């Protein structure tokens, strides 16, 4: 489609959208470098003074490294586990014929639609009875309720896109099922696995409700919870909160910039099928 008169209008709206998208980040960065006292005085678009106090306080006084560590452990472990188990399930769904496959797929899709709030209380009681509240397994297990269906869903769609002929050829050439899986399918599925890993990791990293409900204190809280619960002595410590937000966002932004093509592919792989 080639707009003519509308080209300028188009471009203008696009620029506006991009500015709208990036402005909150810009503003957060500016504010995180501004002393608390000046934050609500007279806001200006350009920072007048720049201080690094907030960032220092983040790691000195508040020990922000701990939530980061917690998030890494929980998101990383969940992703790794779901990837391993999910790949096997996805292989079965994409390549094998057995009755009940459609039902399983519908079931998995249905689970992704669960409102998390509906299972918070029984999970809480279950975890409490297993003494897992405020522990890593106590978060990893609930996270699998949404990470596992997501993984299976995306991977099944991805594997389906790899031509079946290749494994047929491998079988005729003498490869067992296990060999065609490891030598032919898996190497070709690596890009999809990477994408799924990235998406799953992002979902886990951003999760809030379960992390809020199943952790008790700063020792095991993840990044979103830690940031949301920042308490100041007298007032809301916006400077530090925004500094934390920047720290939490920067690596994500970097990952998105690098992997944006993959992410787009992964999100649309499972979703629309024409």
């Amino acid at each position: 489609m080639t707009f003519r008169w509308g080209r300028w209008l188009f471009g203008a709206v696009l620029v506006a959208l991009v500015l709208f998208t990036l402005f909150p980040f810009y503003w957060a960065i500016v504010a995180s470098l501004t002393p608390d006292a000046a934050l609500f005085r007279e806001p200006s678009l350009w920072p007048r003074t720049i201080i690094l106090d907030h960032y220092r306080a983040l790691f000195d006084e508040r020990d922000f490294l701990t939530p980061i560590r917690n998030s890494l452990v929980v998101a990383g472990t969940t992703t790794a586990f779901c990837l391993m188990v999910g790949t096997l399930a996805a292989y079965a769904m994409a390549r094998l014929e057995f009755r009940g496959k459609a039902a399983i797929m519908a079931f998995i899709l249905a689970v992704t639609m669960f409102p998390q709030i509906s299972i918070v209380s029984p999970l809480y009681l279950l975890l409490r009875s297993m003494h897992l509240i405020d522990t890593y397994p106590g978060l990893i297990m609930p996270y699998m309720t949404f990470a596992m269906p997501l993984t299976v869903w995306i991977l099944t769609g991805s594997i389906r896109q790899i031509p079946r002929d290749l494994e047929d050829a491998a079988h005729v050439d003498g490869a067992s099922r296990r060999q065609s899986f490891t030598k032919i399918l898996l190497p070709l599925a690596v890009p999809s696995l990477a994408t799924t890993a990235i998406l799953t990791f992002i979902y886990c990293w951003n999760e809030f409700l379960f992390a809020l409900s199943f952790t008790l204190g700063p020792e095991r809280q993840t990044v979103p919870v830690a940031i949301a619960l920042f308490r100041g002595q007298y007032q809301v410590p916006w400077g530090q909160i925004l500094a934390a937000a920047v720290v939490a966002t920067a690596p994500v932004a970097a990952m998105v910039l690098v992997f944006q093509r993959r992410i787009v592919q992964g999100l649309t792989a499972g979703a629309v099928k024409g």
Partner: protein
Amino acid sequence: MKKEARLGWMLVAPALGVIALIAIFPLGWTVWESLHMHELRMPWLGKPFIGVDNYLEIARDPRFWGALGHTAFFTVVSISLELILGLFLALAMNRAFRGRGFVRAAVLVPWAIPTVVAALLWRFMFESEAGIANALLVDAGILTKPIVWFIETATAWVPVILADVWKTTPFVALLLLAGLQNIDLTLYEAAAVDGANQWWQLRHITLPLLKPAILVTLIFRTLDGFRVFDLIYVLTGGGPGTSTEPVALYTFNALLQNLRFGYGSALSVVIFAITFGLALLYMKGLGVRLAGDER
């Protein structure tokens, strides 16, 4: 064939088992719990079976109906805005232009950050009369003087909806973009040769062929909208009072603040039923072709 079926079930079992254990079992438990009175703050009352009494209480509970209304309002307004903006973004990203990669990455970042962080960013911008939102709006002449946004319900919704649109439009745009890319370009060429202009092409080719993608987007976004929690917890806490409280937050409060496990479970079941009902409705409209196999 039997061997293949056995292998299939074996490979699916671990994933299925995990999901069943951690999702189905608790759900069943929630339903069971919802039929009892279970006030953790008053343990001497025990845990008597009260049948559907919790549900009757919900029906009479004005705060619940308020929450339902808030949720519906939030969902409808957000989705409408997101669809329009998302469609525009998708159409824009469908054509090659310089800097397209940058635009795509830039709009993805809000989607990728935690919702609570997004909420905090927007809270900060609308906080206090000296916040940047006030400053910009007064400078632009849209406001005569700064408002305290979070004191009034009507104004409190503004940052909430803006934040959700800001965060989720990229995702909507992506889903629609995928649908756009499935449309055969030669259709447009044929229409152009026949003399149809851009608007005609948009209305008669693009939109009709985009219907499946739009429906899928509607499903996902409606369900997400009904489950909204993080955003409002951080932005308004449900306030002022409980005037922006969605059902998920109300349930959370009932469970983990008021410790009314029986009642909270009943609320959970109601939410689940609503989301499930919506999902079924949509899927019927879409025609489920989920496990479609080629062989």
